[in-house]
């Protein structure tokens, strides 16, 4: 792996020396409007979404401003720009919940027309939603569960990323990044890798991760493969030894492999994605932290949507898409011997609904999700409440919502 890192550094240096020209920011850009002829300009953009959620099975309902996000960008020169994305979840932040966080905060260096480098807090290209998470870009009020449970979108870390067009090809793009690693102590079968992310705050830096992707596009098809592998224990050797864990750059590794394909034509949008997470030393992590870390997690989904307004007007600018999505999530696909299988972490669901886009940047959504899971493992209920309502393995949830981006 040291060799890999050395090669990566070498290629980045090589490309840095090839500064030739930079892109000009266009007046049409939603984030950089007006920047083309003016240097040192700061502008804003944003997105947000709110949803009404009614669990028809449990007869519970709530309404929430899920997120509101402000982009701030600044152009220092033709070659160097700044991007940031600050998010407030659940409208306010106090002891009962909500979150105020930076989702992105990085400098972008345009190396030449086809390659750029980012440094700071950024979102690696893993899956579809992670990088493209505006509510106007996906079906349904809730992001696909596979891309929140298995791929913990929005997954951002600190590091350096090289992005660009694969040389000699007009059909392939790549990303290659080094970021901080995960925190093994917080990996568990229910939340997956979500709580193990550092998200830019005081990340351990003795362990690192490498992530890469290849994205191909041909006419109406797009195909992507992405991978992540990195260490999950950033403790000092003495501390790691006392826990019998392997620390260091790629110690106690976590790996993720993802592939997806999408099709878009004549009002149809079809997507499929598969993701697999492997944690070979899950048994050691469980022995150290008793966090019920899985050895393997996996998930896939397939969805199809059609703009039904095209039935009446083939050239309509509006979009009323009827869609359906099937998902399978296996949070404890494989458990180590010292792990506890909890079948509630394995579930499948079907979501059907409508996305209405009256004009670009605005969406109104309505959908119904039917999910089916296993039952909770009673071994994990230390003090079961005697009057507890029986767990419903089959649930139906109705969601109505709005979203915007500008």
């Amino acid at each position, binding site marked *: 792996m040291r060799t890999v890192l050395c090669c990566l550094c070498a290629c980045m240096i090589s490309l840095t020396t090839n500064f030739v020209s930079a892109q000009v920011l266009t007046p049409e850009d939603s984030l950089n409007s007006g920047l083309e002829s003016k240097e040192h300009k700061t502008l804003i953009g944003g997105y947000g979404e709110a949803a009404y959620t009614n669990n028809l099975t449990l007869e519970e309902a709530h309404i929430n401003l899920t997120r509101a996000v402000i982009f701030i960008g600044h152009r220092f020169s033709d070659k160097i720009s700044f991007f940031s994305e600050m998010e407030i979840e659940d409208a306010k932040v106090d002891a009962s919940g909500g979150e105020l966080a930076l989702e992105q905060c990085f400098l972008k260096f345009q190396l030449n027309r086809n390659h750029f480098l980012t440094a700071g807090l950024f979102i690696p290209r893993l899956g579809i939603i992670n990088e493209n998470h505006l509510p*106007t870009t996906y079906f349904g009020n809730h992001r696909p569960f596979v891309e929140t449970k298995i791929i913990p979108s929005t997954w951002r870390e600190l590091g350096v990323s090289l992005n*660009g067009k694969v040389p000699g090809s007009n059909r392939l793009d790549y990303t290659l990044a080094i970021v901080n690693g995960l925190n093994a102590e917080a990996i568990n079968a229910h939340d997956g890798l979500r709580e193990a992310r550092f998200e830019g705050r005081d990340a351990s830096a003795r362990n690192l991760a490498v992530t890469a992707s290849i994205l191909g596009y041909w006419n109406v098809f797009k195909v992507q493969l992405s991978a992540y592998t990195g260490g999950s224990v950033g403790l000092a050797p003495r501390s790691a030894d006392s826990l019998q864990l392997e620390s260091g750059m790629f110690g106690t590794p976590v790996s993720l492999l993802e592939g997806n394909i999408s099709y878009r034509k004549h009002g149809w949008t079809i997507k499929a994605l598969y993701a697999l997470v492997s944690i070979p030393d899950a048994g050691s992590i469980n022995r150290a932290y008793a966090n019920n870390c899985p050895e393997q997690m996996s998930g896939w989904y397939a969805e199809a949507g059609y703009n039904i307004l095209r039935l009446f007007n083939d050239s309509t600018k509006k979009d009323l898409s009827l869609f359906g999505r099937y998902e399978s999530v296996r949070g404890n696909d494989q458990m180590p011997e010292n792990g506890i299988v909890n079948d509630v972490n394995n579930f499948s669901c079907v979501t059907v609904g409508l996305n209405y886009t009256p004009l670009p940047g605005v969406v109104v959504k309505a959908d119904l999700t039917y999910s089916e899971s296993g039952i909770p493992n009673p071994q994990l209920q230390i003090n079961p409440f005697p009057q507890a309502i029986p767990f419903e393995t089959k649930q139906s949830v109705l969601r109505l919502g709005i979203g915007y981006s500008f």
Partner: protein
Amino acid sequence: MSNRREFIKQGAQASLGSCLALSVFSSVFESCKTAALTGLTIEENEISFHLSSFGSKKIIFISDERLKDEVVIVKKKDGTYYAMKMQCTHQMNPVRYTGDSFFCPTHGSTFDMEGKPTTAPAMRPLQRFTTIESGTRLIVKLT
């Protein structure tokens, strides 16, 4: 189980290895890209070339280091031309030609052949440049 684990490991290594190799050679390939256009001249705010460069082609890309961005020129059915900047209007990343549309690999925006946005997050069309037919030459004004 071990096979799947091995699969992940090998897959991750193969992906990373491929990316590294491609990155290392990128600068070399970059210099090889030249547009095979007859009589091509590039000035600060203007591109000019012989119309015969189109031949039977309906689309031409001009990728030259003297230009800040790649430019695409499309020949319409009525024999007229239009030119656009190959740059996404969402976050200024380069767009790619897919065969029948333009695609921004960074955030997934797509544009039709006329440059109109067809998939969010981009909401505005690709920037167009003025084209002027002057005798046997086509002039593209980059301002």
